[in-house]
């Protein structure tokens, strides 16, 4: 018996579908990334910093995502891409939290608490990552 994932058509895993539903009701920015790091959903509060509307432009490829943001540590020093919470969740399959200075497509610098969790489904499936943002007033 062999098992592989080759669905009849493109189908998001139910875990991502239900997380999207929850995210769409939250007032804090949330990203959902698939296992390849593509941003397959971002909710309305996340749209300003991304400079795009999900309903109009849809998903954002991982390569585009890297070009969309400038990121610094809280003290202004550089942060390696591999040390960003989303990449730790995706590549190391563990949660991560950092306070970051982020400039998005709207040009504004923000101080954000960023928490990323890997999305681990049943049967050992690594499905991507969910990232929560919390803007800090300082």
């Amino acid at each position, binding site marked *: *018996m*062999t*098992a*592989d*994932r*080759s*669905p*009849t*058509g*493109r*189908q*998001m*895993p*139910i*875990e991502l*579908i*239900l997380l*999207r*539903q929850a995210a769409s009701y939250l007032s804090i920015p949330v990203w959902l990334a698939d296992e390849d790091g593509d941003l397959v959903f971002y909710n309305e509060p996340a749209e300003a910093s991304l400079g795009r509307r999900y309903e109009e432009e849809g998903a954002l490829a991982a390569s585009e995502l890297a070009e969309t943001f400038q990121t610094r540590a809280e003290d202004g020093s550089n942060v390696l891409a591999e040390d960003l919470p989303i990449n730790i969740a995706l590549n190391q399959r563990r949660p991560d939290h950092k306070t970051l200075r982020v400039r998005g497509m709207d040009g504004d610098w923000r101080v954000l608490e960023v928490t990323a969790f890997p999305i681990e*489904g*049943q*049967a*050992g*499936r690594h499905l991507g990552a969910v990232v929560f943002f919390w803007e800090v007033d300082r």
Partner: protein
Amino acid sequence: MKVTFWGTRGSIAAAGPQTARYGGNTSCVELRTAGGGLIVLDAGTGIVSLANGLDPDTARIDLLLTHLHMDHIQGLGFFGPLYNPDAEVHIWAPPSRSRDLSERLSRYLAPPLFPVRLRDLPCQPTLHDVPIGRFELDGLTVQADLVSHPYTTLGYRIEEGERSLTYLPDHEPALTSAALDGEPAWISGLALATGADLLIHDAQYSDAEYEVRVGWGHSSVNHALNFARMAGVEKLVLFHYDPVRTDDDLDALFEVELARESVEFPVQPAREGDVLDV
């Protein structure tokens, strides 16, 4: 494939003269392959009738469970082949990282809920976690995916050659796309159903009932129709009826819901004993 419906009811068995036409047993569908193989979809109370007609020399039985809600496993304890030491029964169920299938089934198949422990069944069934994705089973290609229903629940697409059947008895795709007109990739179960020759789908509620049962894991008849339309299926079988509905209630529901808009594919409400060729 030949499909026989042994249980069409949802939630709890509803036996009695008022449910005799559509049937009162809970979910159980028999699938016979061209080669004579036997696949059983869910082990609701309908599985008892299925077992009564089985050839005792049946070589192998593969029982594919969509999930472990009681209405889908209640017949297990009364499934005759499990008491036959010579029977080869394989039970397939959704995977879990926290409890193996034996432990999960033993919550029911053990005292005080049931007098016989799973481990004491003479047949000693082989238990499997269903792989998410595609796998081969008795000459069939089975595609399994998790779908929108409380507790880990699978839907199945089963293909034999060019023919395909999709089984989504407990499914609330509307929860993942309110109007069922969103992006297809984000609609639960749609890839399983796309282009299927036969779709067996949850039709527990009317639209008005659904409005006060959002998140309970089921669909209205209208949702089933819209989902089938999006999937482009050849035929839709309505399934998993609310246990409070009598046969007359179901007739009235289908008369209203199926007349509401033009349906461009055949729709058949399942009745116990129905046999379909796919």
